[in-house]
């Protein structure tokens, strides 16, 4: 649910509509509901994964992108430093 309002059974009134009150009903939590306990279950699963990969596919993608950028960049860096360290031609 997060920031989305609860889905009503009848057709929803537009936020600025005058036919229904525009104030949130008292049962709606302010700015989204608390789903920390769900996340706690996810990250406490005994799957043997380290914390930086425990979120699944998005974690793997981010990790691989960071690794590629860093390793590739380091190779580029070493080549650039090697070239820069050559004496200037007369």
């Amino acid at each position, binding site marked *: 649910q997060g920031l989305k309002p609860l889905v009503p059974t009848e057709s929803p009134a537009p936020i600025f509509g005058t036919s229904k009150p525009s104030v949130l009903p008292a049962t709606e939590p302010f*700015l989204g509901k608390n789903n*920390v306990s769900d996340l*706690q279950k996810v990250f406490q699963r005994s799957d043997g994964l*380290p*914390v*930086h990969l*425990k979120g699944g596919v998005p974690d793997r993608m981010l990790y691989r992108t*960071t690794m590629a950028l860093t390793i590739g*960049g380091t190779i580029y860096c070493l080549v*650039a430093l090697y070239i820069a360290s050559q004496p200037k031609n007369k």
Partner: protein
Amino acid sequence: MTHQAHSYHMVDPSPWPILGAAAALLTTSGLAMWFHYNSPYLVIIGLLSTALVMLQWWRDIIRESTFQGHHTPTVQKGLRYGMVLFITSEAFFFLGFFWAFFHSSLAPTPELGGQWPPVGIQPLDPMDVPLLNTAILLASGVTVTWAHHSIMEASRKQAVHALTLTVLLGFYFTGLQAMEYYEAPFSIADGVYGSTFFVATGFHGLHVIIGSTFLLVCLLRLIKYHFTSNHHFGFEAAAWYWHFVDVVWLFLYMTIYWWGS
């Protein structure tokens, strides 16, 4: 299943420390390639990889604490020591630039016309935008304290309002300072006045941006219910850092902006 007989946190193996070090190598070598060979690619890769490492490292710390419960009181104590030591090191960093300012301004050389501000320099009016910026940062110190008390009293709405105001004040300061930089009648290349002014206020501005970002992350975590009324050290660390940034500005204002004009 084995359990540890102590209250410290033995972290999972992580790639971020070494990748962070590599990112620092790319950023610094990249600066050299940019300055001397006019090639920006390496510094861009360096800054990007630094950002990615920071994002994932701090994301993992949130997972370890809020979702896995590893931040016992013992661990929290260590984090408090760590943040205090870090802010102390930053204080020494700024001390160096204040030293440089006083070195040049207390005994202005004949090349400057024997005066401070030097001949030809039109300093900014300290009673203009700089005074407004002082008011903004002082107000933000009040709002961040209001936010802290609201968190401790479990007043969610008030805490969100107060922290949002704090972040907005921070960005307002940055916007005004950027405008001041653009409109200033002198530049960093204008002798030692320009150097001391822009390096000291420039590093301060960078710290305002860092602090505002830290507070913004805390606001997002606050909205997502990560903080409890007893345990919210991430927020406290951000608030300490923010007060430090405020104090540095007060010193900058009194010395460089006011005495130095």
